[in-house]
């Protein structure tokens, strides 16, 4: 690695580390702050009204006991600014709160960051990371495959189905009856293909919750496969990154070396499975290679640039996964836990989860920076 790229790499790593340390410090400070200011679940112990409720001989739901309490209180506190009636009202409000306030109802046993909770969150975090990595790999492969297919279609001079349909109708005005009949058949096929493509696009652009709720209404914590599929195909993730790769392929194919390579007898035809064309199996492979074809070089060069977009891909993917877990209300998952804790105003737990997600994004950034730097070193032929 030359000195300049080494310095750039060091600077990037330093910046990532610094931001992780700074954000972690700020968040931990806030976590401690929120933890110490947490409203006590056992508020009755601190409240002066709790003393009255601890009197076992008195039932505040019984009118006789209430009247008795009122009279005794007024008699024993003649100079008090608080009357027996108003004290009874306060006790009623307090008792009502104990039944209605969510602080007393749910999640009470788990309030705050305890060791038990940390283990639980740790498990969810690991689960989230595994899902993130799986969806990342699948969408990375899917985006490249779709991008390549689209590029090859472009090279085959295939336009959109609607454009082809319009062209056919224009041509049919000057053709004779028999060819009109065959054009009609072709048009039906085109319309059919357009409908299938339309449905496919509807799925790819649908937010995850639209697809999910059109299939079922309840989702269990074990729906991993379903969530992974949703993570890949929904929220526009796959289509947007396939489009990005396609754009890179198109830009690369316009460069001068492509024509030079063609002149030097590298294959340049794009017909499927032809001797000098592109093999379908090669497109579907995990490691795509097109030896002897000019597209091999277009693909490699576009792929290097595509790697650099992984940071954005990662951030968008995490957004998608969070949307899926939150919108589907899947219990036992990290994002649902975050939403639940926002609801219960346990902001220290929320901040801890956000910190975890932030660290994951930063780790991805570092990994992408290191990876792209290594690839650049291999191709840019730099030396010390």
């Amino acid at each position, binding site marked *: 690695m030359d000195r300049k790229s080494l310095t750039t790499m060091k600077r990037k790593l330093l*910046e990532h580390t*610094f*931001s992780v340390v700074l*954000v972690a410090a700020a968040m931990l400070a806030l976590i401690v702050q929120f933890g110490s200011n947490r409203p006590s679940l056992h508020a009755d112990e601190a409240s002066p009204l709790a003393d009255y409720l601890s009197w076992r001989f008195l039932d505040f739901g019984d009118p006789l006991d209430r009247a008795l309490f009122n009279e005794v209180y007024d008699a024993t506190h003649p100079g008090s600014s608080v009357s027996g009636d108003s004290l009874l009202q306060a006790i009623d409000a307090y008792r009502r709160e104990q039944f209605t306030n*969510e602080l007393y109802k*749910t999640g009470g046993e788990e309030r705050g960051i305890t060791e038990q909770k940390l283990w639980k969150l740790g498990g969810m975090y690991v689960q989230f990371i595994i899902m993130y990595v799986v969806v990342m790999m699948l969408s990375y492969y899917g985006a490249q495959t779709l991008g390549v297919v689209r590029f090859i279609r472009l090279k085959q001079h295939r336009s*959109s189905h*609607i*454009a082809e349909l*319009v*062209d056919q109708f*224009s041509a049919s005005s000057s053709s004779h009856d028999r060819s009109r009949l065959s054009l009609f058949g072709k048009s039906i096929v085109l319309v059919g293909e357009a409908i299938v493509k339309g449905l496919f*696009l*509807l799925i790819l*652009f*649908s*937010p995850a*919750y*639209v697809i999910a*709720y*059109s*299939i*079922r*209404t309840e989702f269990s914590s074990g729906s991993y496969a379903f969530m992974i599929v949703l993570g890949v195909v929904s*929220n*526009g993730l796959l*289509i*947007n990154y396939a*489009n990005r790769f396609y*754009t890179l392929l198109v830009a690369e194919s316009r460069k001068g070396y492509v024509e030079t390579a063609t002149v030097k007898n590298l294959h340049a035809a794009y017909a499927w499975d032809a001797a000098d064309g592109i093999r379908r199996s090669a497109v579907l492979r995990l490691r795509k290679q097109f030896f002897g074809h000019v597209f091999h070089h277009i693909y490699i060069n576009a792929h290097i640039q595509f790697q650099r977009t992984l940071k954005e891909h990662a*951030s968008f993917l*995490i*957004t998608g996964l*969070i*949307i899926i877990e*939150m*919108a589907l*209300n899947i219990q036992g998952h990290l994002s*649902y836990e975050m*939403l*639940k804790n*926002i*609801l219960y105003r346990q902001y220290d737990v929320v901040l801890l989860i*956000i910190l975890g*997600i*932030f660290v994951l*994004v*930063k780790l991805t*950034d570092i990994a992408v920076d290191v990876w792209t730097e290594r690839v650049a070193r291999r191709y840019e032929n730099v030396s010390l």
Partner: protein
Amino acid sequence: MTNQSHLPRTLLRARRDLLWLLVWIGGLIIVGAWDFAFLNQPALARLSRAVLNTLFVGTFVVCVSCLMGWLSGITLHALSEARNTFLYYVLTFLFNLIRSIPQIVGVLIGYVVLTLLIRADVLRSELSQLIWMGSVISVFVFLEISDLVRERIQHFKNLDFVDAMLCCGIKESRIVNVDILFKNSRAHLLHKMISVFGITIFLLCSIDFIVSVGLSTDVSLSNFPMTLGGLLAKLDSKQDILAISSAFTDFGSIGALFFEHLQGVSTAFIIVFTLICIYNISNAFVKRHRL
């Protein structure tokens, strides 16, 4: 053949962005007309309000993030030119920090603050709440425009004409703002603004759906202004879109989707259709302007 008969093909080939814009507007009008005919009045009023609010926030975010992106872009450029390294690194660090927070998490935090503000009676009117929503989303999307502004300035800085203009005594601020950004980067900026609009619709609908589903099941929080995401999260809308899957197994119920389940189906369709159209407008725009 007359010029008029060429129009569809011209639109299809040369101005596909315009075509997709027409498809989007036409699609919304058709859905609106259908809903007007077959959807009950209260649901129609909710849907209209949700569409208008969503489009308002989308437009607001585009305007605000364009302004913020432009300002932050030229500020960073000016700081790097003035060799004010401390301020430059502080700002860059802050922006990178915003970049590292997944957009949905950032927006969710903004919504938590919005809930607190509504509870404290600080934000009362629907308009102010929508503006808050838009402002929060802007914070997490404006960097795309900021990056573009810097990229464009950097690109032109390497060309001779900037030095030539500086030699002619033209102020650098004028060169950057007028000649580079306004005159020579309008198409790029417009393309980015289209993308920002799409991202905003996606984020807004998603966050409203999440908030409506997740934050209101156990507790009656403040009611947010109705948007497409919020409307889709309503129980009757969810039941409507659930009917879509049953239509695949029971073909006879397909018709019911367009008459009995209109609220949910229309809402979901408008969201997805808008995202598809914006994607296509953006792609065709890039192609037409060779960006």
